């Protein structure tokens, strides 16, 4: 199973096993990673699953689609590396992915 590392704002790391096909948000919620709220349950309607993808992974995770980019307007402290984790699907290529959790979701 691909491993994903979530780094909290305070530096705490959470390494979780994610199933291929679930989303990076779902893997976080299932493993109780703090700081990912996902109020809308992955419908790209709340922007509370915001993460920063580490630069070296951005090519593999790809760029947000228009709907996600629009929803990012409702996130806080949005950067170039910002993604909504419910819109990143776990694949074998993402084994080793590292994302940072923002200090606060909205």
């Amino acid at each position, binding site marked *: 199973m691909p491993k994903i590392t979530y780094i909290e704002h305070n530096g705490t790391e959470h390494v979780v096993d994610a199933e291929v096909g679930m989303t990076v948000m779902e893997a976080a919620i299932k493993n109780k990673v703090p700081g990912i709220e996902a*109020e809308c349950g992955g419908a790209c309607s709340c922007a509370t699953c915001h993460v920063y993808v580490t630069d070296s992974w951005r090519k593999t995770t790809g760029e947000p689609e228009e709907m996600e980019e629009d929803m*990012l*307007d*409702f996130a*806080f*402290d949005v950067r170039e590396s910002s993604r909504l984790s419910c819109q990143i699907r776990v694949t074998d290529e993402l084994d080793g992915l590292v994302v940072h959790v923002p*200090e*606060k979701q*909205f």
Partner: protein
Amino acid sequence: MASEQSSAPQNGQSGEIETHVVIVGAGPVALFAVFELGLVDIECHLIDILDKPGGQCAELYPEKPIYDIPGLPVVSGQELTDRLMEQIEPFGPTFHFNQRVDQLERLKDGRFRLITDTGQAFVAKVVVIAAGGGSFTPKRPPLQGIEAFEGQSVFYSVRRIEDFRDRNIVIAGGGDSALDWTHALAPVAASLGLVHRRDKFRASPDSVNRMLKSVEAGDMEFVLGQVTGLQGEGGKLRSLTIRDNNGEETERPCDCLLPFFGLTMKLGPVADWGLNLHENLIPVDTEKFETSEKAIFAIGDINTYPGKLKLILSGFHEAALMAQQAHAYVHPGEKLLFQYTTSSSSLQKKLGVK
């Protein structure tokens, strides 16, 4: 519930609305409750803080598909709302939008008085709380110390444009609300800036063009970036820190900030009505969906009971059973016959199909 309040005549009682049932909320479950109540000759008023019916379906996911409504293999949040509105049309419910129910009290005669944040009062025999995940509330940006500025320098809505005259205003956000308010406030503001993280907007082309024209005319400024800090004291804002997309921070003088980052659901005033609560939900029985207070019901996402599923279809079922007991309170002594809409001519008459 603060029970046994004085039932002495109150000032402005003439404006009070009397009805059988007041429904708090106008989400999908509230809408279907109108149908079930209507079938048993009960008239309803619905109050919602949103400017439209449909609750979460209309506000959070109007275009997304729902697959688990019996008989509708796929339906979008907005379409379900529209269909429900069509279904309840024969019962002529009255909607009161843009109002939040703040108070609920029991009168001496056993009825209830509800008062909204605009001061509108309602008197009803039965109250149905269909408040879902709570009242839709503007999102508060997680900026250090923002609470201290709220009400004096930070606002999430505009009630009176005059209150904003001659102020140095910054509007943050890129949706329709943000753009509409730039348009409304530009004529009265001393200065107006719109701060948004990109030069694309999630808004109607019309409002975008209007905003760009105002920028061209020099009536306002568009600033690419995000607000990252607030400076000021005693609730009075002096300036904002704005970070541009290269990470550079600048300070911008500002005494009035209007952040528009969408809505989130907060339980809100429902917590103050003296009802039993369990983890911000209202426990009910599963026969009548009545709360700890007689004649106050709770249906839909707001209630809890063993086995509760927060699904629209559960809320519909709850509405049907609630209506039976509500009938006993609204029309005491009248016997209720169990009837099918397919075959009962009296039900069909109410639905306007006979």
